[in-house]
């Protein structure tokens, strides 16, 4: 059994390392499915043991692509689900037994904090009022049916992932009106499905920046024109000039950070700054699994530098050996330039992201690799 799991984890680690699976959606789905399998086939007696196990396997997966936030997000989410299921069921047991938690003799916490889900320690006020936070997080009690409940919850989460694109794109009508001119850059499957959905009913034009040297914009252009959307490809340098004719900027991203900043394809920051200059609203479409609880402590560490060959190769002349060539694949985007996030849960202003974080992750899982 354990060997099997090891094998499966190794397999995914290898695929991640060799970039055999790419695209954050696929990575998310594969990770979630693997974790579900680990939970179902490994032997564990308490939620605490399971949490440790998932953390341990999760760290191996995260280490395979440390710059990619998606794997870590899925691990955090699964840990959150385990904690949630455990706490709900444990409390249910307590009530059945008629025993009230020892530390709250007079006023049960339910009375004091009626709106407070009891597990979210970190989202509650400093506990002058509540006693619950005084309890050390304790996941050692055996709980009846825990495994099947957890697996069921994770199954629901996997279904949520699978419906991600349709849940995002179905909101398109609320944001795209007829005869709009929309600018985007690079390629994002989420944005593609969002625009295609809108194109079923509305006529609009898309301007896409090509994003040299990846030229992801060309891919977007071909995908959109195939769906009958009037698309114009422009070089990256024309972004500022063309912005004057644009109504909306709609972008994809690799990751959303805790402050609402993005890690997105190089060039995104420039585009949103140009949009700000022209007071054009910027919308970011992304599945919620891209939301990471990590803050951008160090912007430089967030950009991924790739081989400079595609920018300047050695055939251009001998002088190149003296030149430093910079080719970031993705880099940080400041949250102050983003007006709206559209996730599979709906539209959110950047200022509300902290709440989504609290609802989806536990603070103690933020730094997986550290622990």
């Amino acid at each position, binding site marked *: 059994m354990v060997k099997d799991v090891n094998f499966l984890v190794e397999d995914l680690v290898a695929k991640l390392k060799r970039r055999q699976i790419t695209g954050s959606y696929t990575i998310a789905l594969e990770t979630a499915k693997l974790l579900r399998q680990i939970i179902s086939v490994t032997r564990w007696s308490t939620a605490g043991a399971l949490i440790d196990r998932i953390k341990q396997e999760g760290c191996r997966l995260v280490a395979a692509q440390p710059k990619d936030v998606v794997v870590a997000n899925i691990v955090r989410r699964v840990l959150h689900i385990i904690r949630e299921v455990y706490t709900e069921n444990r409390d249910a047991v307590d009530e059945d037994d008629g025993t009230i938690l020892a530390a709250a003799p*007079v006023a049960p916490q339910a009375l004091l904090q009626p709106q407070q889900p009891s597990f979210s320690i970190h*989202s509650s006020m400093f*506990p002058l009022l509540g006693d619950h936070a005084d309890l050390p997080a304790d996941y050692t009690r055996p709980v009846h049916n825990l495994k099947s409940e957890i697996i069921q919850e994770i199954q629901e989460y996997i279904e949520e992932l699978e419906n991600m694109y349709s849940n995002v794109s179905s909101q398109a009508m609320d944001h795209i009106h007829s005869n709009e001119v929309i600018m985007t850059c690079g390629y994002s499957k989420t944005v593609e499905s969002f625009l295609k959905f809108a194109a079923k009913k509305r006529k609009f034009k898309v301007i896409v920046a090509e994003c040299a040297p990846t030229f992801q914009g060309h891919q977007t252009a071909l995908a959109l024109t195939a769906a009958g959307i009037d698309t114009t490809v422009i070089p990256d340098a024309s972004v500022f000039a063309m912005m004057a004719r644009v109504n909306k900027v709609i972008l994809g991203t690799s990751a959303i950070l805790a402050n609402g900043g993005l890690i997105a394809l190089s060039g995104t920051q420039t585009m949103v700054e140009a949009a700000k200059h022209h007071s054009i609203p910027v919308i970011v479409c992304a599945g919620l699994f891209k939301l990471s609880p990590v803050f951008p402590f160090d912007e430089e560490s967030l950009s991924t530098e790739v081989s400079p060959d595609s920018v300047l190769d050695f055939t251009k002349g001998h002088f190149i050996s003296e030149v430093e060539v910079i080719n970031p694949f993705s880099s940080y985007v400041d949250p102050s330039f983003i007006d709206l996030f559209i996730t599979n849960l709906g539209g959110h202003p950047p200022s509300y992201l902290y709440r989504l974080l609290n609802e989806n992750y536990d603070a103690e899982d933020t730094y997986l690799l550290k622990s």
Partner: protein
Amino acid sequence: MAHEEFSIYQSYQEFLQSDPDMSMPVAAVQSLVEFIRQSQASTMSEFVVMVRDAAQVLKSSARNSVSLAAGCDLFMQAVTRMADANVEECRQNLINRGTKFVEKAASCRESIAELGEPFIRDDSTILVHSYSRVVMTLLLRAAAHNRRFRVYVTEARPINSGYRTAAQLRQAGIPCTVVLDCAVGYIMEEVDFVLVGAEGVVENGGLINQIGSYQISIVAKAARKPFYAVAESYKFVRLFPLNQFDLPTHTAQILSFDSPQSVASPSPSLSDTNSMELDGAALDLAKTNPEVDYTPPSFITLLFTDLGVLTPSGVSDELIKLYY
């Protein structure tokens, strides 16, 4: 009243002085606990009124009551929620909770420091305003973990508390330079981010802090540098100032255009501010000048609190939940 000999304000002052690390809201809670311990009330409603009055007395005795009020309000919230229990149980319960709160308050700063530490990168230059215990905890922790950084600290006239910050930082081996309050614009280009403490964090995520914080935040915003506030969550307060003149600390005497003599009447207390010895002229200035100012949320990048790193919008969420 059976306990006329007990002065809530005096008790508060004693707590503050007995522990230099204690912050005002914690001292306020502790003095209220002390009050309850000595109080006698037969009915629940009498009890509630008594505690409320005591809190009111406490709030009105200090010149700068924002931080103190946060503690009082937090405690009063606990009191009102107990309203239907019996008096003796309620008393005991509140004393337990209050005592536990005070015990835990100290660990608050440590957990903030833990959350804030990753923001302090090697080779960064930080601007710190005045003296703040929680900011010190954060900086000293980062230094203890071998982070290398430099600190500019404002002088913070007239109380000159910046020198205290500088002395403590230097002792910990952190390179540190005191700058004039009016030199903030000059050095801002060199700074990676600004770190300030808080006396109170208000409903919209804005900040009430030592005078000068607001103008530093404006300079930081103009220079597009992050402005981080560090605050324990017990400093969150249900206040929503619209501007400086809407602060509870604002009085007609502050910076009025009357002749200086007419406003020379001593204000309740200046000693709250942990001030250094002030000379005569500075003392006069301090009396006619505001002690704190209000920094609107649009100038604040993030707040480091024991509840996590929050955007200003997260503060309101916590306050709404707390006072629901």
